[in-house]
């Protein structure tokens, strides 16, 4: 694999403003395929904005964001969905569908990517086994704990076999043990070759798992922190 091929995500002089508020200011970095990267920083530093830019949820005010050689800002309504189908996303507030069972929450992602219904059972069972929720397959979200909900979110993200997993404060609503369990899972997935980008301000997690860190403050990458702390 050449150096160019190994780079999966490129941020080149990216700025993003919401009105007069600058969320990101001239941010540049690269993330290689199969990397596990923490994006850290205080609230409002621009962590979520970076994930939103990768997902195509918002466009940069300046600069360019490239994922697998594709300029994300150039994606239109027609090809944005297929791009997003290749990215798994997990959220601090889980974002599970409250009126659907665990099985259905995962099946809906498979339905979105157009997988025939006959293949759902096997795929859902596989990811539920991976996150340890096999017994809860027919439970509704209201019957699950925070940690279980986050694992549903992760299972849904993994079900579509994404190249990249984005995690926005996934441990924000979880206790230490549950957070640790989730991190083990993310690490396991990373070892399978998936790129993981996790925004967090939980420094205990960051210190324990020792991955590359992109540290943001006031929308800028703080020099010296963009390094692998391992």
């Amino acid at each position, binding site marked *: 694999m050449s150096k160019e091929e190994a780079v999966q995500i490129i941020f080149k002089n990216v700025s993003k403003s919401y009105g007069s508020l600058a969320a990101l200011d001239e941010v540049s970095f690269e993330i290689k395929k199969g990397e596990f990267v923490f994006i850290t920083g205080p609230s409002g530093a621009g962590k979520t904005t970076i994930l939103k830019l990768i997902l195509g*949820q918002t466009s940069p005010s300046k600069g360019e964001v490239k994922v697998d050689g594709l300029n994300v800002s150039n994606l239109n309504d027609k090809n944005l969905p297929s791009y*997003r189908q290749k990215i798994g*996303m997990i959220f601090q507030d889980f*974002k599970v569908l409250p009126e659907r069972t665990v099985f259905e929450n995962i099946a809906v992602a498979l339905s979105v990517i157009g997988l025939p219904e006959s293949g759902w059972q096997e795929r859902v069972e596989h990811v539920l086994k991976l996150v340890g929720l096999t017994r809860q397959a027919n439970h509704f979200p209201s019957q699950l704990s925070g940690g279980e909900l986050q694992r549903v979110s992760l299972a*849904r993200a993994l079900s579509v076999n994404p190249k990249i997993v984005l995690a926005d404060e996934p441990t924000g609503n979880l206790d230490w043990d549950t957070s640790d369990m989730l991190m083990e899972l993310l690490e396991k997935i990373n070892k399978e070759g998936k790129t993981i980008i996790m925004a967090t301000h939980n420094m205990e997690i960051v210190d324990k798992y020792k991955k590359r860190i992109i540290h943001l403050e006031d929308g800028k990458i703080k020099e010296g922190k963009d390094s692998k702390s391992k």
Partner: protein
Amino acid sequence: MNTHFKTAWGYIRRSPFQALAVSFVLGLTFFVATIVSVLVYSSSKLITYFETRPQVIAFLKGDAEDTSIAALQHKLEANSYVKDVKYVSKEEALSIYKEATSDNPLLGQLVSPSIFPASLEFSVTDLSFAQGTIDELKKESIVDSVGFTAALGGEASLNDVISKLKTITTYVRIGGITFVGLLSITSLVILLVITSMRVVGRREEVEILNLIGATKGFIRRPLVIEAFIYTFFGCFIGWAVAFIAVLYLSPSVVTYFGEIPILPKDALGLFELFGIVLGIEIIAGALLALSGSLVAISRVKKVR
């Protein structure tokens, strides 16, 4: 079961009263539409009946020869303003008379075929051609006299009856179509309201689906299917109630109107009529559901 259909069914089950409200309004719309369609059909049949029944009778002289009668019949048949030419012999005229006086058989026994003139009966394609045709006919040597159908009392009376029927039919059509139009608009507005409520209620779900890469079509499909379920349910219920009502009333109606074919007299004809009405209503319902749901989705998205 299709995943979008399952999703749509789930929405309906979660809000049964909304579903009932919209289904009942659509049911009422299609019920009225079916009844108006039947009324339009019946009134057309009524007018056609009066317009096409034998209106002119040319009574022939007693000494008219068969060849002359046949020649006149051919001449009439060749006239584009004339249709349904029929020769009634003296014997047939007697039998018509006997049938007409069947409640008093003595009257029938007192007459012989010789006192009844043979005649040529026909209709005109439009009553405005009647007078000219009659005038021409009167010039024929074998024609004794010419008159309009006796039961209707002459040209003035027939014109009057048809004119009144046409007026009534026009009112039925305009009134019915206006009423159906108003109900259709009401149904469309209710569909818009329900679909808009669904979109607003599903805001979080739509957001999640967007983030996991769902296309616009994927997100919209359950809402459109839901509108189709309401519309087809309403269409079938409205049509079925109207059909049952017409089936129940048809024996009395058919008896009352006698030989006038205001409704198909055989079951097959009635099923065919209602089948056509159902087909048209399904197409109208599909357009209603599609336009209602898509307009609602686009409006809610624009406002947000």
